[in-house]
């Protein structure tokens, strides 16, 4: 059997005695686009934080392509080929757009803690950075400080930093939160383009985006997955409708 790109095996997490994640089981296939939905406070961001080593898991195991990554440090998880974005924009505000992207490429391109390479002279590195900026549609903002970009541009850069370095598994946390319709379209198009051929997990509240983007959907309610399946299967699932989707879909219309 081919190992799943990402697998959570009965993962739990408690904060000072309260169980926030209660036995999370999730399997993400390779090259699929998987959406995780659920009401606020269901534990979606917490799950991301557990996978990426920001929090320690209380019990259970997490596997990346069959490799145990439970409780590794964030940088170790990244080095193993998993990269994430953040719900609240998390960029390098005092560096230019170009520097933001270039820094995100350094480890993946094997520069490690080098103090004997001059970044300006590294042709492949700079070309990759330029290419990503072009993909992000941020060419005109190349030398602008990331901190003064518009919100949508910062969200785009956030995705750029996440995908730079070619991680095979990408976790996006509410990439379109707080965006207008046209900005959402731009970001969704961008996500499609830059995650081509990769495994994508996306937490999202905008159901339009979710059903548009995802191959499969998992519904997370109170720290547990109550359903996983194709968009149609999930939409028709009774438990899902009761717990979450009914309300969410009504809100849309």
């Amino acid at each position, binding site marked *: 059997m081919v190992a799943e790109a990402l697998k959570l095996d009965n993962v739990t997490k408690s904060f000072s005695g309260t169980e926030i994640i209660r036995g999370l089981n999730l399997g993400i296939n390779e090259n699929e686009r998987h959406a995780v939905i659920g009401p606020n406070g269901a534990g979606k961001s917490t799950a991301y934080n557990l996978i990426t080593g920001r929090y320690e898991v209380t019990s259970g195991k997490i596997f990346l392509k069959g490799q145990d990554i439970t409780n590794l440090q964030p940088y170790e998880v990244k080095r193993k080929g998993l990269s994430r974005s953040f719900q609240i924009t998390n960029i390098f505000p*005092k*560096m230019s757009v170009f520097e933001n992207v270039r820094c995100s490429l350094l*480890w993946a391109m094997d520069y490690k803690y080098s103090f004997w390479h001059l970044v300006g002279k590294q042709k492949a590195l700079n070309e990759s950075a330029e290419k990503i900026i072009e993909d992000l549609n941020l060419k005109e903002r190349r030398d602008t400080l990331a901190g003064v970009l518009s919100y949508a541009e910062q969200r785009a850069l956030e995705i750029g*930093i996440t995908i730079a370095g070619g991680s095979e598994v990408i976790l996006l946390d509410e990439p379109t939160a707080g965006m207008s319709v046209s900005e959402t379209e731009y970001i969704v198009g961008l996500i499609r383009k830059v995650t081509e051929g990769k495994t994508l997990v996306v937490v999202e509240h905008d159901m339009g985006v979710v059903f548009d983007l995802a191959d499969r959907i998992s519904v997370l309610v109170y720290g547990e997955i109550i359903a996983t399946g194709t968009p149609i299967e999930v939409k028709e699932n009774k438990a899902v409708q009761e717990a979450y989707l009914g309300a969410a879909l009504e809100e849309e219309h």
Partner: protein
Amino acid sequence: MPSQTTSTISFSSLVPWLIAALVLCVMPFIFTGGGSITIMNQIGITIVLAMSYNMLLGQGGMLSFGHAVYMGLGGFVAVHVMNIVENQEIWLPLPLLPLVGGLVGLGFATIIGSFSTRKAGTVFAMISLGIGELIAACCIIITVFFGGEEGISGDRTMAPPTFGVEFITQKEVYFLIAFWVLISTFLMYLFTQTPVGKMANAVRDNPERAEFVGYSMRWVRYVSFCAAGFFAGIAGALFAINFEILTEQNLNLGASFTVLLATYIGGVGFFLGPIVGAILFTLLQTVIGLQTDLWALYTGVVFILMVMFMPAGLTGLFAMHIIPWQLGRIGMLIKPYSKIFIPGTIFIVGAVCLTELINHVRHHGDEEFMTLFWVEFNTRSIVPWGVFIIFTAVGFWFSRALAVEVKEAWGNATFVEGVRR
């Protein structure tokens, strides 16, 4: 391995360095006095130290209260090596001594950094403070190595001559220091352009995100810390060569605060900031220090004002003017600036004279006359008191009134439709 570089270092990128080298060569022929060469030597040493400090504070976001430790330890070992060389137990030409100091600084930074860089912020600052106190205390206790309160001294001229130069005169030492200032500054600049130098900025800006792009923030800080220790050690050895003596004063908290002040006044956000700071601070210390006992007070006031009103430092103040310059509106600022210059100067002169007068009466009360700004007057008379108070008050009042105009002119000179600043 990363792909190979494609081009060699271009000539145009070397131009600023060649100019700097030229300036350094010409300086001792412009300022020929023995005193000025001594000051320039001191400036050179402070530049290397402040630049190395900025690798921590400006580039890496690490606030250290104990950076002088690495300079001091490098310096102490350098003096010992100087004495060993004098006894002809080892052969080492003087110009290579800074390398020894650098390696000592690097060595200690490697040890101390291994635990102090685990956390940034308050934890790092507190550990640096503790280490600073600890080493300073050791300095007094371990007399065999540090020589107690008198410190230890050496003789640089006893080293084997380098191409016939024995480094007897200050001018010869000047060129040695200038050489190392240039080399160190150049290397520190290159460091900012390396992967780890870039990541130091990233960790400073957003340590968490840096971890999510694959870098351990701790290791990034550690590498910067070691590099900063290396260059501080070089500064220490230069100090040893220039002054031929090192004492506890060179590595205690006072010395660490001095470098913090100098770097901050120059501007931590800019590569050139510490150079500006080192020059200005050393001049304040030496030139003004000769004129008045109160130089430390003035430095303190300048520091507080900088922190409050110009957190980007002097270099930041210059950099601010690039925008109106590019917009071609720098002319709009000349008039309001020159208008505020006169009352501003009157205020500063008044306040300084008043401070000096109070200090004089307080500490030299038996001397009836004092001289300020080449004018001698009687401190017992009411006239100087009145004049200084009026200067201060009137200067302050007019400066405040005109500050509104400056602010307005600044707004006009930098205003661009739709751009937030």
